């Protein structure tokens, strides 16, 4: 408890006299206290260990296993490699071309992202944590394919806190839960305030954000009385900072009721921006909505924003026909490219690291009609902004996309690199639990310096 805050509150109370419209008025009067209370918040911003390149992360997670061969690591289908041969080898099902500036080849599934390749650092040499969805997806998020561990977003929230106390530090926009369910954004042994807050697109993106009292004034009256009762209670318990923190948290929550919806309110976006993302006004169902909201959350200081592209059902898991990739790519290509361009034009790409990832790639051999199986040996992901090389390709696979030839990056390396860009040494971000100091990267991880600008 900050005694200064309390004295000030008492003063405010005196000023208010009989007025019961406490929070609305007080919040203004107490604005000056914001800095001092911030210091007591467990989510208060913490300085990085060294000067960071990125201040926040936007991670796009395409669930199901995106075929590297049919997207960012196209392989020739000439010479009978169309799945009809005895070896069932099947090169890219979709035509591809090269980005004019960088020469990076991408299939026609992602024409917009292909055009953005000069801003992107493509990693064609990822290796997955596992060959099955749940383990690989959980591994990509937590570093462990089997044991419950905190999610990367929770680790980053723990390491850096967040600048905007009126929004959660770690937000996951997930219309549907991905494989592994709530585990992918759980804080596990880290304190609960570092867990991801799930946003479900629709009328109330964050649960309980809308005041539920019949009249807004009534909620203020309630909060006012609660505050009075809490102040009585606090007077004999001044040494307990948790009590003061909770009193403060109602005020934050009160503001979040407006700050939260404001962050999700796309009425403030002009038509030009919406059309850049390919979003129809009023539509909250499309992936474009997630992308534009991500930018708004980033602007408002949210530390880690994750967009789940589809979920554990109809997704990128194209076992029977690679054509299943088409509608998903169409839904995400333009909005993702727009997100990069939008961040860039606002000068935010420099300190925002965008990560596009999936849990594994797909086999170079055909499965069923024209599908592919799971393939963890090699696959593609990409990064943009946040101090990584732009227009760069890291690592390569063999001519059929089956094995890595060079530049292996595993999930621990990826995590170490992401932390590094945020100014955190992955070996020094630890939390004591069950008798040892845990890390996001466990005992592994190497910063992939080759991709850093």
């Amino acid at each position, binding site marked *: 408890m900050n005694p200064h805050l309390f004295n000030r509150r008492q003063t405010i109370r005196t000023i208010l006299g009989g007025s019961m419209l406490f929070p609305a008025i007080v919040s203004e009067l107490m604005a000056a206290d914001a800095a001092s209370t911030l210091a007591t918040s*467990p989510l208060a911003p913490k300085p990085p260990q060294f000067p960071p390149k990125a201040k926040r992360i936007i991670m796009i997670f395409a669930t199901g296993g995106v075929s590297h061969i049919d997207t960012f690591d196209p392989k020739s289908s000439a010479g009978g490699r169309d799945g009809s041969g005895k070896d069932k080898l099947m090169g890219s099902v979709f035509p591809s071309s090269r980005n004019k500036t960088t020469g990076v080849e991408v299939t026609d599934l992602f024409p917009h992202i292909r055009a953005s390749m000069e801003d992107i650092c493509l990693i064609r040499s990822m290796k997955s944590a596992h060959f099955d*969805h*749940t*383990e690989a997806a959980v591994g990509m998020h937590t570093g462990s394919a*089997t044991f*419950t561990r905190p999610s990367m977003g929770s680790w980053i929230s723990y390491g850096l806190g967040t600048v905007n106390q*009126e929004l*959660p530090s770690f937000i996951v926009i997930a219309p549907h*839960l991905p*494989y*592994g*369910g*709530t*585990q992918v954004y*759980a804080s*596990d*042994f880290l*304190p*609960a*305030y570092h*867990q991801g*807050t799930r946003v479900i697109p629709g009328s109330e993106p*964050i*649960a*309980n954000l*809308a*005041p*539920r*009292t*019949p009249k807004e004034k*009534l*909620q203020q*009256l*309630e*909060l006012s*009385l*609660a505050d009075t*009762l809490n102040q*009585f*209670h606090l007077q*004999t*318990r001044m*040494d*307990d900072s*948790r*009590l003061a*923190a*909770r009193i403060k*948290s*109602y005020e934050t*929550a*009160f503001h*979040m*009721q407006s700050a939260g919806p404001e962050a999700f309110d796309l009425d403030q976006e002009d038509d030009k921006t919406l059309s850049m993302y390919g979003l129809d006004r009023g539509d909250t169902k499309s992936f474009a909505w997630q992308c534009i909201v991500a930018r708004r959350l980033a602007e408002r200081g949210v530390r880690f924003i994750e967009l789940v592209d589809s979920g*554990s*059902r109809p997704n990128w*898991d194209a076992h029977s026909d690679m054509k299943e990739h088409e509608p998903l790519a169409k839904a995400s290509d333009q909005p993702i490219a727009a997100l990069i361009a939008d961040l860039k034009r606002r000068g935010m790409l420099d300190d925002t690291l965008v990560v596009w990832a999936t849990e594994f790639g797909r086999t170079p051999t055909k499965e069923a009609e024209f599908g592919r199986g799971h393939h963890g040996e090699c696959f593609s992901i990409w990064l943009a902004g946040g101090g990584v090389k732009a227009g760069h390709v890291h690592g390569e696979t063999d001519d059929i996309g089956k094995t890595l030839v060079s530049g292996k990056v595993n999930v621990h390396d990826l995590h170490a690199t992401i932390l590094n860009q945020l100014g955190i040494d992955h070996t020094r971000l630890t939390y*004591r639990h069950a*008798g*040892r100091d845990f890390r996001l990267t466990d005992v592994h991880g190497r910063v992939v310096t080759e991709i850093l600008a």
Partner: protein
Amino acid sequence: MQLSARLSALAILSLLSIPVIAAEDAPAFFRGLNLNGPAVQIDGNPWEGADSVNYICKDSAFEQQNVPLVPSTDPDRARMIRSSRWNGNRVELKNLPAGLFTVFLYVWEDNNPETFTVSLNGKTVMPNVNSGSAGKWQKLGPWHVDVTGDSIEITSKGGAANFSGIELWRGKHNGSISAPINETDLAFFENRIRPLLAKHCYECHSSESEELQGGLLVDSRPTMLRGGENGPSIIPGDADHSLLIKAVRYDDGTEMPPDEKLASNEIADLERWVSIGAPDPRLDATRFVRKKIDVQTARQFWSLKPLTDPVPPAATNLDWSTNPIDRFIAARRDSSGIHPVDLADKRKLIRRATYDLTGLPPTPDDIHDFLADPSQDAFAHVVDRLLASTHYGERWGRHWMDLVRYADTAGDNSDFPVPESYLYRNYIIDSINADKPYDQFVREQIAGDQMPATNDEQRNQQTIATGYLAISRRFGSLVKNYPQHLTIEDSLDNIGRTLLGMTITCARCHDHKFDPISQDDYYGLYGILNSAQYPFPGIELEQKPRDFVHLFDAGKPGDKLAYAMAEGHAEDAALQLLGNPEKLGDVIPRRFPEVLGGQMLPAEQQATSGRLQLADWLTSPDNPLFARVMVNRIWQYHFGVGLVKTPSDFGIRGLPPTHPELLDWLASRFIEDGWSLKSMHRRILLSRTYQLSSLAPADDEAVAVDPSNDLHWRFNRQRLDAESLRDTLLSLSGELDVEMPRQPHPFPPSEEWKYTQHHPFRDQYDSNKRSVYLMMARLNARPFFTTFDGADQNAGTPSRDSSVTTVQSLYLMNDPTVHDRALRFADRLIRECDDPIHRLTLAFELVFGRPPSESELKIVTEWMHGIDDDTEQRDAWSALARTMFRTNEFLHVD
């Protein structure tokens, strides 16, 4: 040392039970059968071909002679292996004389890996054999069979197995002995090979090594054949494919010895040696004892020292001598010069004790009865009344459920439901209510199915108790390579942390870095659980649950099933190099960790899993951790913080106790009281220390000196946990359904299950039952519980956080649940009280356990008038209810 002791014990046993064979020390080759193909010569022994009359096999014959074998082998053996039988997988060996035989089975893989289980005469001898990728072959066995008829039946089930050949030995073959060595070869080995290995390799690759490299021991033939992390080091007869030869040639990445290449004549000697079959008299497998634990030194650590029974310090202040606990506390506190606060007032005390023991608030009647009782024993009566309430078991059962990571689903990729889980939940609650002695409670959970029972009910309850092990987490979605080792690890992790306060699973992949636990200790325990049968809840690619245990009805197994343990295939387990179940090292005898006594599974119990012994070892009063860990937990649940603040880690990285003598004194009383939890509650609750106020006078110096209250100069204020909060809201609104459910959650029938990781189990079955009875899924946590720091369903939760978050505040402000409860609470207040002042008093008593003060009465009444102007009475009172639900006084217990 222990191993050889056990081996000799085994030898004595076999002498006693099989006298006929005992004289016949050396096993003799009896017969080889090439199941598909001609007669061949293998290891110098004549094998019969497919046309032999000495067996019956109706399986399809199959041959694929162009697949390269891994490891490569001599031509005759290779021919035998690559022609095999499959589809049916049943071989009956005929025309056998009575006596003891040893059976080896050659299997191989021609294309994709398969997993199958091999049985001999209907009994599983090798579960979950993984055939490996194309070309891999294995010689399975040795299996010992006492032939009484004239045949042996070999079968497999599960994935498709390729049976290539069968090798039969008369007598007991230990699998490591190969053909006798002739004198020339022996001389060559002794003169040229042994000195060379000793000089260049033993430093890093022998049982005497300081640290073993690559898991490879080259100081015995069996360990060279088995090899290390990279596979077998030699393939007798095939120098070119032997890793040892590749390494000394420096031509394949691995370069051994690393400092300097051997001389060319030395390399030539090794090549020759392997080429002639690597003749080697060193037939006994050596063992590298990984961590040489100095037990004497290790047991000097506070938590591993034998339990003591300290005499409580003399009372220095008679006001503080009511209870020995207070004397321990006072002695330490007084020496720090800190003064305790006064006792809590009676209202605060009964609210504290009622939440503490039942997780619910006291009723106004409870409070008034207590206030009206001026006797010395008034509080003792309250404690007795609360301990007799069934709500006590629900509250303290939930603590146990936190520790054992109770859940109603399995945690695999599809999160399969386990409808029978509730039986174990009810067992916990019933046991706690019955004050079942803690040692018995734990014994039943480890091995209740193996314990004697006098009637069906007792037998069933003891079986259900093993739900503790059964609910261990499941992993994956595949039948092949089902990661059973991870489920066992989950069990061991929980046993270690919950019962022993030890992080033993650190030793799954390597010796524990901090605590005196070796990898051998881990696999000694692993073998016990690996010898038990876990029920199979179903996974994506094998939907049907199986291996559940039938509960007894009228003296025999009935239709009702329990998710519980049974005995499995009993055998010691091999150590897994770097925790990888495909890279096996030494077989470790089943035993208890050395530092806790190192008790071995007795010879006469080798045919059992050893769970019964494990249960005894764990709960023995000689185990210094067992009682200490539990009394510390009891203390922690009462006071909010344990005497040891790392309740599940009593190791070197944990924290030492703030009051070590008190901890031991409590542990000794716990044992003396027959491991009674209720007696321990009484001791603690009737202490002055428990009854202290949580309020500190303004500017109390103790706040500055000891802010974390390590010295117990006051009571620790505690936030309501998630369950207490929800249950209280339901109780205030009059909606709480207090009956214990004796039926499973309404899961769909298992025949309809089609859960996959794409469409995992996602149902939620809500009710107005107490929170302890809500269905808890592993992969889909309930938002309310994650918001208010509920337990983790995937790993033991030794203590709950009490975080303060905006999401909590938003919940209390806007969640429909809170609004609904408030509305019904308002209805109740209006129904029960006509007079507004009395009604307000009732509201305060129900929510805070006290009447409003004068000024509160005034403020709230004015406030109500302010709202009443334009709102219904019901709305005004529900607005007040919501307001009260958001107060710190409601959310905390003083």
